[in-house]
């Protein structure tokens, strides 16, 4: 009777895999170096955890099948057992070793995904400011001087640096197939480094609950060749209107706007917040910094 319960998780795992249609799960289908690092880390940790589970399950099955009352003589008196120093040391030391190993892996992979992805030579990362407002994503390209809403195009052969902040509730910027997520907040700037090594369209979204329109707060991240990307930029600069402060304020207030493109960014009149830890110093210096960056690159 008890064994049923033990097999259950595995049956469930199997069933769910079948039901999910044998397509690789999004997290295990990375399209860029940082997401790949995370995918590998996760697979490694799952294997370690399965081994631990196996040990516990084997022990449990063993105890339950051997020491059930129905298998013992009616007059069997279980002995008094205080515990065992040796065993206790074993099951303390082994987990500590596992934890140590995992901690090292964690620090190593965390620092890896927090840096510019390797393998792109000396190429400067393309900086894109991604900001959220209820319930939209704004993408500003200071270098190119364009801005989009609810979609972002990136070139494949260049590392990307997203700088995140929010015009309202805390949101979390996440393109699962390219990189892990990070919060976008109103009072500090955070960064995500990523690169796409395959062209394609990837789902991106806010994963941190932010109110009524949260479920719809998705965007498309499209990775394209540098050539296509340049063409697209040229197109936007030629055809789309400038983003004025008035227009931007209107945009912030509207909940759902679909896709939009503009041939200038909001960074000029609404600079991004500072990076963390610079609040104490007087703000002007930093503001100037940011302004300069925004303006410089909008030429």
């Amino acid at each position, binding site marked *: *009777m008890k064994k049923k*319960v033990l097999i*259950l*998780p595995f049956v*469930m*795992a199997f069933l*769910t*895999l079948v*039901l*999910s249609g044998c397509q690789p*799960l*999004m*997290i295990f289908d990375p399209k860029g170096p940082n997401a790949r690092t995370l995918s590998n880390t*996760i697979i490694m*940790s*799952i294997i370690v955890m399965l081994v*631990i589970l196996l040990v*516990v*399950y084997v022990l*449990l099955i063993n*105890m*339950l099948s*051997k*020491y*059930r*009352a129905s298998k*013992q003589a009616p007059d069997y008196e*279980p002995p*008094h*057992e205080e*515990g*065992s120093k040796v*065993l*206790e040391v074993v099951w303390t030391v082994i*987990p500590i070793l596992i*934890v140590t190993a*995992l*901690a090292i*892996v*964690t*620090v190593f*992979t965390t*620092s890896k995904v927090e840096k510019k992805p390797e393998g792109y030579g000396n190429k400067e990362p393309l900086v894109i400011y991604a900001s959220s407002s209820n319930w939209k994503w704004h993408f500003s390209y200071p270098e190119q001087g364009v801005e989009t809403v609810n979609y972002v195009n990136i070139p494949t052969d260049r590392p990307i640096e997203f700088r995140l902040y929010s015009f*309202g*509730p*805390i949101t979390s910027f996440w393109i699962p197939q390219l990189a*892990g*997520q990070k*919060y976008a*907040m*109103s*009072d*500090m700037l*955070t960064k995500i480094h990523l690169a796409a090594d395959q062209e394609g369209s990837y789902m991106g979204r*806010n*994963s941190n*609950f932010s109110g*009524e329109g*949260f*479920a719809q707060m998705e965007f498309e991240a499209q990775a394209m060749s540098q050539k296509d990307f340049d063409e697209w930029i040229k197109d936007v600069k030629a055809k789309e209107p400038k983003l004025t402060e008035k227009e931007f304020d209107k945009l912030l207030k509207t909940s759902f706007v679909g896709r939009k493109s503009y041939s200038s960014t909001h960074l000029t009149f609404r600079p991004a917040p500072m990076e963390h830890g610079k609040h104490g110093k007087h703000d002007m210096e930093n503001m100037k910094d940011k302004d300069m960056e925004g303006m410089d690159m909008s030429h």
Partner: protein
Amino acid sequence: MSFDELFAPMKEPMILAAGISIIVGAIAVVAGLTYFKKWGWLYKNWLTTVDHKKIGVMYVFVALIMLFRGGIDALLMRAQTAIPENGLLNSEHYNEIFTTHGLIMILFMAMPFIIGLMNIVVPLQIGARDVAFPRLNALSFWLFAAGAGLLNVSFVIGGSPNAGWTAYFPLAGTEFNPGVGNNYYAWALQISGIGTLMTGINFITTIFKMRAPGMKLMKMPMFTWSALITNVIITFAFPVLTVALALMTLDRQFGTKFFAMQDGGMDMMWANLFWVWGHPEVYIVILPAFGIYSEIIATFARKNLYGYKSMVMSMVIISLLSFMVWAHHFYTMGHGVMVNGVFSTTTMLIAVPTGVKIFNWLLTMRHGKIQFTTPMLYALAFIPIFTIGGVTGVMLAMASADYQYHNTMFLVAHFHYVLIPGVVFGVLAGYHYWWPKIFGFRLNEKLGKSAFWFIILGFNIAFFPLFILGLDGYARRMYTYSADTGYGPLNMVSFLGALMMGVGFILLCYNIYYSFRHSPRETTGDPWDARSLEWATHSPVPEYNFAVVPKINQLDEYWFAKKEGRDITAGEYERIHMPNNSSAPMWMAGVMFLFAFFFVFSVWAGVIVFGLATLGFLAYRSFEKDDGHYIEVAEIVETERRLGGEQ
């Protein structure tokens, strides 16, 4: 706020229906009590009681009601997401429901259930006549009830909180949440939190100062140990919540700038404070369950607990570590590698003492003689299921990998795999185990077991698919999703599992009725042939618990005395001093309820009146003279004879 706005929630048909059913139910209860002339009985025996057992029963009773309230929320959520683009609930309603589901299940179901069991069992296990401060204990209960009442009132009057049970700013601030919903959040939690803090102080004092003669700390039953450590965590974690909620109130109702988006405010400071309390809170609800499992596994394996000392040590270590890991709830806020690395490591370290406990339980069963009773089934199911929760916890603890799990269904699956076996199965096990102690008859085993199977199978069917969905990029708290995401089938499976769990819980309740009617009454006081002291007295337990306080020489003294044929409760009767009943705790909590209610709506006249009334109660208590009463020897003899039966 106009009358129209006040009852705005009532415009929703489903809320209107819920509101009406609450009112109808209340009227039915009132009418029933009046018809059967039970008001006096209720007031005298229950509402004014300071008896720890009765207070415990009331805690469990309210917790069970809240379990159903939170469970219906859960079913609605699963029903809404069972099919893509479902129209059962709109976004606003869904948001309110997952918010109250989280709040109710953690603070108004798990906590009171745990505290209720502690109330019932701990004084019995240490051979005490009551807790250290019986009247404070009653006040704790009534404050909890007032908080629970306030949260449930929000559903009908003014609007429920809807920013998630974590209520992150600025979403929970007035700019994005102008209604009173989050004022309710702050005050419901504040009031019941103060009650919980008092419970913590009360039980620490009880366990340190009221143990039976000879019961050294290292001779205490494991459940009492877990209760002690839990209450230590409560006492030192809840003040943080008190402060956090006070700051929330200040920000929302007085315009301070703690978590504001301008003037130097820091929105993540709320998240920080919330989790400084919130992570220890997880251990507050889980450690007592560990204690319950220790009692049950030892009892039904018919063996002493393996590695008692390391069990105690590991709980102490968990309690300390629980205060050092909170930042793992927001690895993704842009910390440097160093901070994330530190919190990753401390988090994973918790797995070590927890693992020690798992192995000790397994080894307790070795060479044992395992009986598969209902409580034991829950304990046995706990081990494999909780281990899944534990190992996925270690996976989540790895900061880098968490960038992919954070805010997804993987996380939701993980914490349900921890909290349901770790808490819900624990309290259900304890509930079946100690039921005969309190009520004098056992719950039906057959019904208990079928409920168990529904709950266990339903649980795995409901929550395992969520791991897969999370890894497929399904974010939590989405009220809907499109069909082409492919999330539909697994969500449907999950919904079916949730339904199964629902059936299990209904069976659980039916079992109370059935057993009340049909179960044979206990005569021995020790139906399971168990080991610890609570089984040494009668069932149901007399008001004074033990006619003669037993002397303790070793761990499991009662068990060894049974084996050796000694009666540890034998001895000369003396008159027993007991505290008097008091209605003050109930009225004081009522006044504080009104104080908070007016505060929610910023009606300052009401706030001042009931604030002063609260101070008045404190002054009354300070000046009150009440020395309790004595139970005379003749009465003890009579009670012992009646309860002892043919013994």
